[in-house]
């Protein structure tokens, strides 16, 4: 009753209009308790924390421009003759989908700009997600309590890839049609059900009359709908968990230090949306993307060299290009390994990064919450694994464009393919070893800095004639930041016999974990942090070093 009274008394008084509206909304939506928790929510400042915003904003831009495009695009494969304003296509037979895309590009004022914003934003969206995901990976931000949000993000990346694919296939041009043909061929390679899936997806034989309309509803409704839900869930979890932060003075695992949402982040994050939109609009104004008019309408008996998917499908393309042509024919059936193996590898390779947080938490056995980010150097094995994964990804990306690489660097396409085949196995190993060494080197440097201070570059002559470089001791804040990271001790299996001398049963999984734990945290895998004793000995001891 008292709440009611106070509301009424507020309403009776001459409260400003804004407050009255807010009161009205609060009485129905309870916005005040929501605002209390979030209006002055703290977000830490770091440029890499804005990568996720790049993704969010480009996603919004894609939705906005996508809605506009649906107003003019006809998702139909009916054959029509072109009589629009683009001369080199006059009188050509083409699907309505292709014709309407030509019309958007040439006859709808501003249509070309919106089409290009849509496509550029998609390229940036996927690139942003990739880099954002790597930021989260290398700083260990995926650890408890954020594993589920990591999975949400991963799903967004994968769904983004397929939304992109179904999107650029819609115009039914010669390049994207070739990609759809590839997809159909890949589906056919699936054992037992391949031909059925293909017939059902395309409404019969390839290309049929249906796939544009079906891809359309997948592209504008099904996948973006799921993605929108995931984005909202992703953001709710970011708010709920509060953002991670790097170690530093005053920053602990139990607090979050930064600027409040209102007003600073309202200005910065809100402003960043416009910055992202502005940059992509300029991009669309000055650089062509997917000039479908130059590609021609799709015909299954025509093709162009340089047939590539958009970049985010490039590594899958690389897998397919690098695979040898294995085919097993047995008992009247064909197992098309040459296509099916890359198809499976595509999934396995992506899944590997998705499940990594769970593998790492199993190895460390750590069940605590982590809100302080790792510097990549302080988790050498994880960092090295991540770089190895990226290396394999990038090598396959090169493989996906092997013909372009060959012509632009005057190489043999066969040589490039062989490089990719070997590099896929060798590259990650080299990357792993090198990265781990670099991380350990950086850890050593940090330790030196803590113990001996910062090199000032000033050379001093001592009374007895010796020259030394003056080292300036670090501030307490820097000392703290450089030594704030956690160091695990490798897990031990323990004695194999118990106190009575009876052999203890050790499970295989325990042995494996002990081994992995040693690889992660053993002597070769991290440089022990400097201790207070070491520091005291050096600083109080001989005065200089």
């Amino acid at each position, binding site marked *: 009753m008292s709440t009611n009274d106070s509301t009424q008394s507020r309403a009776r008084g001459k409260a400003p209009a804004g407050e009255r509206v807010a009161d009205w909304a609060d009485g129905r939506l309870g916005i005040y308790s929501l605002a209390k928790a979030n209006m002055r929510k703290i977000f830490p400042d770091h440029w890499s924390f804005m990568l996720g915003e790049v993704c969010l904003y480009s996603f919004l831009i894609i939705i906005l421009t996508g809605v506009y495009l649906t107003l003019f695009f006809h998702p139909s494969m009916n054959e029509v003759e072109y009589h629009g304003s683009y001369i080199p296509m006059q009188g050509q037979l083409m699907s309505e989908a292709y014709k309407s895309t030509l019309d958007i590009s040439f006859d709808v004022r501003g249509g070309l700009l919106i089409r290009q914003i849509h496509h550029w934003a998609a390229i940036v969206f996927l690139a942003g997600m990739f880099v954002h995901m790597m930021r989260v990976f290398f700083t260990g931000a995926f650890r408890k309590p954020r594993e589920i949000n990591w999975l949400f993000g991963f799903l967004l990346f994968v769904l983004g890839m397929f939304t992109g694919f179904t999107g650029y296939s819609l115009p039914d041009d010669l390049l994207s049609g070739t990609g759809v043909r590839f997809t159909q061929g890949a589906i056919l390679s699936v054992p037992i059900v391949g031909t059925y899936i293909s017939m059902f997806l395309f409404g019969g034989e390839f*290309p049929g009359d249906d796939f544009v309309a079906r891809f359309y509803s997948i592209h504008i409704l099904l996948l973006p709908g799921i993605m929108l839900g995931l984005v909202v869930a992703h953001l709710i979890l970011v708010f709920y968990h509060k953002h991670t932060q790097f170690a530093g003075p005053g920053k602990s695992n139990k*607090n979050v230090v930064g600027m409040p949402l209102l007003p600073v982040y309202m200005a910065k994050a809100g402003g960043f949306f416009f910055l992202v939109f502005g940059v992509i609009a300029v991009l669309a104004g000055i650089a062509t993307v997917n000039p479908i008019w130059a590609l021609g309408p799709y015909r299954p008996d025509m093709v162009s060299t340089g047939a590539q998917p958009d970049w985010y499908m490039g590594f899958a393309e690389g897998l397919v290009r690098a695979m040898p042509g294995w085919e097993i024919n047995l008992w009247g059936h064909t197992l098309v390994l040459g296509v099916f193996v890359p198809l499976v590898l595509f999934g396995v390779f992506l899944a590997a990064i998705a499940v990594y947080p769970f593998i790492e938490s199993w190895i460390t056995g750590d069940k605590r919450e982590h809100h302080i980010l790792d510097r990549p150097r302080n988790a050498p094995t994880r960092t090295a694994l991540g770089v190895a994964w990226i290396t394999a990804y990038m090598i396959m990306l090169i493989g996906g464009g092997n013909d372009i690489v060959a012509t632009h660097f005057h190489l043999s396409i066969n040589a490039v393919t062989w490089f990719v085949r070997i590099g896929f196995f060798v590259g990650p190993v080299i990357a792993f070893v090198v990265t781990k060494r670099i991380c350990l080197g950086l850890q050593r440097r940090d330790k030196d800095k803590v113990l001996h201070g910062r090199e000032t570059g000033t050379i001093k002559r001592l009374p007895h004639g010796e020259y030394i470089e003056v080292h300036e001791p670090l501030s307490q804040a820097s000392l703290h930041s450089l030594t704030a990271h956690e160091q695990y001790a490798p897990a031990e299996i323990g004695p194999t016999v118990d106190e009575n001398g009876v052999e203890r049963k050790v499970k295989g999984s325990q042995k494996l974990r002990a081994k992995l734990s040693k690889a992660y945290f053993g002597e070769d895998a991290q440089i022990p942090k400097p201790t207070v004793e070491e520091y005291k000995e050096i600083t109080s001891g001989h005065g200089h070093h």
Partner: protein
Amino acid sequence: MSSQDIPEENLPAAQDTGHGALGVADEKHPFADPGLPPHEPRIQDIDERAAKRSERTVALLFTVSMLATIGFIASFVAIPHDKSIYVFTLGHINAMNFALGLTLGVALFCIGAGAVHWGRTLMSDHELVQERHPIEAPADVRAQVFEDFRQGAKESQLGRRKLIRNTMFGAMAMVPLSGVVLLRDLGPLPEDKLRHTLWRKGKLIVNMNTNEPLRPSDVAVGSLTFAKPEGLEEHDHGFQNEIAKAALMLVRIQPEDIKDKRELEWSHEGIVAYSKICTHVGCPISLYEQQTHHVLCPCHQSTFDLSDGARVIFGPAGHPLPQLRIGVNDEGYLEALGDFEEPVGPAFWERG
């Protein structure tokens, strides 16, 4: 995933040991946290003139944005949509697209830049600290939840009345089947559709370019010709589906250069006809090198040797391109002597 066999001491000390913001050094964290550094003012905080300058910059950016929007509308109205201009380094581009892109970009960018500049220079930059709270519920809440759940489950009698439980699960499990059945008419069953093309015995081989049936003398050594079966016209409904299987590539090789015996048998005076559809994933393969007789697929670089039964010599394709047996009819035109003996295009499970 259990971790109870990891001893506590293996885990590093928590990053905050609960001593408050000003941590105390211990064995695992040798250097205590000195706490947040004191706030230092910006120029704008102490010099009102600097603050004024910031204000004017922000206002200027917002004004530029307004002008750019006016520019956008003006460009939309004033520039003919098919006008082409030359812009240095960009080439001959569409004037309207360029003008709209730049004005829209500037209008948006300046709003963003203004807001960020405002936030960075004029809004308070005092760093604030917010406490985190453990996400896990306290033990008593946990106990209460489980208790409530048990109570609710008990009141539902689900555990006790097995008949209800089992039939409910059965019904729930079965009802999605209707949805699956509904998908049946997405497409026909494969049957033997992938095994046949339009080629039949006696079908003339029609040149794709001229739409005329081909004679042997038309096909010169070293030339490349694409063909379709007679009667298949571009305007026909179903043209795309048929050409996706029937597309043909004709080359003429000196008979003595043909290494494969069957290939020579199926050729006519060195004219060989191969499916244009790659056996890998179905791209129209046709990058023919007339000196090496290699044909390369532009999609995934499968390479076939047309002088040796279209054997795969590189790349991911698993089997040779199917050859069409050809001959000459009474009137001297090239004709097919039957359909392809094997399915064209990508391999599939039932291909055998």
